[in-house]
């Protein structure tokens, strides 16, 4: 195969990686602050894809879905699940938190089944993003470039908020010590809600970004949560930088492995996880020093 094809594969891998990153960054942010692993994050993603399908179908406009769904996801889905469900288990054992998030996963899967049935749906590629850019022999689909740009912009915005604003330093403070943050006069449970809302909005953003490149079907949430959870582990739980790096590694290796080792493509992710954990049990950016 020629070098150009590898570059095209690399770009395709990067755009998948960015979807993993958007999901993983939400999951890892929530974990870093709330110390809860929300396994329902994958189900949120699946739900977003189906909602995106319906919104595009009824409005005929992808842009509407793209801007509205992340907001609605964050404030409605995130706000409600945090306030009425997760808030009750912060002080409970980890097993209880795990059971709750698995329960939410099942509820969402059933809701999807009731509303959309069991057949798969695709959100068509929006008109503006159809086609390629050609540079020399390299072809890059427009949509892949769009996803990469949007995701990197999101990553930059997250870093800017976390490291350049007061609320960002409060969020980082919460990851370090809840008690000390409270004694600084901060209402920590409001911060929890805010972070859960932001993390869930990121899941919504991942859904709308992925929708034109994937097929919405039941069970896709399980596959995705395994990948995203692996990304979080590789990067180091709680680290946004780690999520970005972990997602890039998994997305790119996956894309490049398919033509070379098709039969191992699915195993490779777990091999990467095992190798990273062997040498760095806390993940690449895991907290030997608590950082976001």
């Amino acid at each position: 195969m020629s070098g150009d094809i590898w570059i095209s594969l690399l770009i395709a891998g990067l755009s998948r990686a960015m979807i993993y990153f958007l999901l993983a960054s939400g999951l890892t942010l929530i974990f870093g602050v709330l110390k809860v692993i929300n396994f329902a994050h994958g189900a949120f993603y699946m739900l977003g894809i189906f909602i995106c399908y319906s919104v595009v179908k009824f409005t005929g406009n992808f842009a509407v879905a793209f801007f509205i769904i992340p907001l609605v996801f964050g404030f409605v889905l995130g706000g409600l699940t945090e306030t009425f469900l997760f808030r009750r288990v912060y002080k409970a054992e980890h097993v209880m938190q795990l059971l709750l998030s698995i329960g939410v996963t099942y509820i969402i899967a059933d809701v999807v089944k009731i509303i959309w049935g069991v057949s798969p749906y695709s959100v068509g590629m929006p008109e503006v993003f159809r086609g390629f850019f050609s540079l020399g022999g390299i072809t890059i689909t427009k949509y892949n470039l769009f996803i990469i740009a949007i995701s990197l912009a999101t990553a930059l915005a997250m870093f800017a908020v976390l490291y350049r604003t007061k609320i960002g330093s409060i969020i980082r403070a919460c990851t370090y010590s809840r008690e000390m943050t409270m004694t600084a006069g901060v209402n920590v449970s409001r911060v929890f809600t805010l972070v859960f809302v932001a993390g869930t909005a990121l899941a919504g953003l991942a859904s709308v970004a992925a929708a034109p490149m994937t097929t919405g079907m039941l069970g896709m949430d399980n596959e995705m949560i395994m990948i995203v959870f692996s990304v979080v582990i590789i990067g180091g739980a709680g680290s946004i930088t780690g999520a970005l790096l972990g997602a890039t590694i998994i997305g790119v290796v996956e894309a490049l492995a398919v033509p070379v080792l098709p039969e191992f493509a699915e195993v490779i992710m777990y091999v990467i996880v095992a190798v990273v954990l062997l040498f760095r049990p806390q993940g690449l950016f895991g907290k030997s020093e608590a950082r976001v």
Partner: protein
Amino acid sequence: MGKIHKIVLEVKDLHTYYGLSHILFGVSLIVRQGEVTCLLGRNGAGKTTLIKSICGLVPASSGEVWYQGKNIIKTPAHRIASSGVIPAFSDNRIFGNLTVKENLEIGKMRPRSDEKRVIWTIEKIYDLFPILKEFEKRWAGSLSGGQQQILCVAKALMGNPELLILDEPTIGLAPVVIASIGEQIEILKAENTSILLTEQNVKFASRLGDACSIIDMGEIKYQGTFKDLHNNESIVSEYLSV
């Protein structure tokens, strides 16, 4: 001397549990305006637990904590802090993943009362502790133990406390650093700040303290002045010597 200052905080018959273990057994304590009230006791006596109960970090099972005319026993921790009761703990001193300046800014609160006292601002803190200005951009976790303790106190001051609670500020520090922490507390006291100070270091505490209580096994065993305490060798040897 002689003048009795008004009460800032009054703890009455406080009981606290960690799970099933009963830690505080009916503790009562008074802190007066502008004084340094010392709470002495050896390892595991219950000093930190008492402070956490006052600050709303550990729920007390019964008893009262009176502050500004209200029983704050059920008030959420962040409200207690924003009403001016601000602790500086020795085990969790600073936010290691924030810069020195961010540590100071996160605890910033406006003064609440019209008592004639300094108003703490970041400039004022930098004047008092120049080392913090020098290191303002560093990660707080990279500071030495003594520097972290200074930042810990400075961070609490940024909240313009009505009552500053210092939990064993000297623990694990070198004698030179302890001496300078002592000087800083003298300055705060001269500025009419009310302080509740817990210590195992009786010598350090007696140089600064006005009133003194001794806690052991979760009970107050002595309440009085340091002068009387010095005349009472048996109490010192029973509850304070290691």
